[in-house]
């Protein structure tokens, strides 16, 4: 039996936009550019589609991943499970390039 691997994005965590990213809306779509301090890191630029833009605009340091995913489910008429999976995958990409940071998940002590 395969062992379940913990997803890097906790549903109860609260993401916020990093100050190491700049963004620009072009003809209704967001472009995200992570800042870099090494030449080898200059290969990440994100063109967000409608769903990506919807999520990005809700990453405000107050909403949890779960709350954002529920709003995605409502807006785009997909199941909550699907919205949560898509949201976590998208946020993990943003996390990897430093475009977002997470606050402590609600209900957990910062130790």
């Amino acid at each position, binding site marked *: 039996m395969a062992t379940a691997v913990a997803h890097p994005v906790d549903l109860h965590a609260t993401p916020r936009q990093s100050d190491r990213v700049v963004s620009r809306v*072009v003809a209704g779509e967001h472009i995200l550019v992570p800042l870099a301090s090494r030449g080898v890191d200059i290969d990440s630029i994100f063109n967000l589609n409608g769903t990506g833009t919807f999520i990005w605009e809700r990453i405000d340091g107050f909403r949890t991943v779960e709350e954002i995913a529920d709003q995605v489910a409502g807006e785009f008429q997909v199941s909550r499970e699907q919205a949560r999976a898509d949201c976590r995958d998208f946020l993990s990409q943003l996390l990897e390039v430093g475009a977002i940071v997470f606050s402590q998940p609600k209900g957990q002590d910062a130790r």
Partner: protein
Amino acid sequence: MSAVPVVNRLKVGGTVLEARAARSSWIAWPRRADPFLVSRGADIAITVHREPGPRPGRLLFESGGVWSAYEQDDGRLLFTFRVGRAIYKSALIDRAITSGAVFFPRPAGGGPRSALQFPLDEMLFQQRWAREGRLEVHACGVKDGKTALLFAGHSGAGKSTTANLWHRSVPGCRVLSDDRVLLDLESGSGVRAHGTPWHGTGRFGAPAHAPLAALFFLEQAKVSETVPLHPAEAAARLFTRTFPPIWDRERTQTVIDACGATAERVPAFLLRFRKDASAIEAARRAARR
């Protein structure tokens, strides 16, 4: 050091880099730059010294190639250029990129005589333009009649091939550069393309400019055709072909804003091209739409 310095001035896209030194050989530009030399102006003024530069401060960016950027204690920027671990040249300049000093100690075993060899001169312009929301683009530019077309691509995409095609096939066409083109947002709704002295293997570079009619992103193919790009896609592609100070949030925002505005003003296309006149026709058709 001589009391009477020699002065050279390079003007690109209306910006003048003035270099002063005790000897002309220290600030000589390659012959390719001759059409860009002028006798007046100093938007960026530097002096060249044959002595070691200051100790680098806080590291801002490491290119992975020859150069790195640092912030000094007094807020100025220091760019260092290395061979191996040894710094052979450095440039200390104010944050507004208006004045500074280049330190170019005499190399023990020979080496370049001029401090202004690539990439220092171009980098100073890049830093200044990034503050002003002007975009230096890794691209070939051609002036076709009264308007310009931009063909952007990374190394090997076909920029010099495109320049040669237009140069050979289109009478009266002027190649602005086959490697670096400056874009300016004009007041109103236009974008202007300027030639630069920094060229590719085709060695094209001209101090000319024209309103930009279309942006193309090059992709070699068996049949020439154009595919329209959404402005957001075009802006992202354009950004990856510019030279932003990617460690600086404010400047990077300025550059991505300029990319977005350019893509909203000028139609952009993917140009799949065959290396013949069909590529020219495809580009002209798209630009006329």
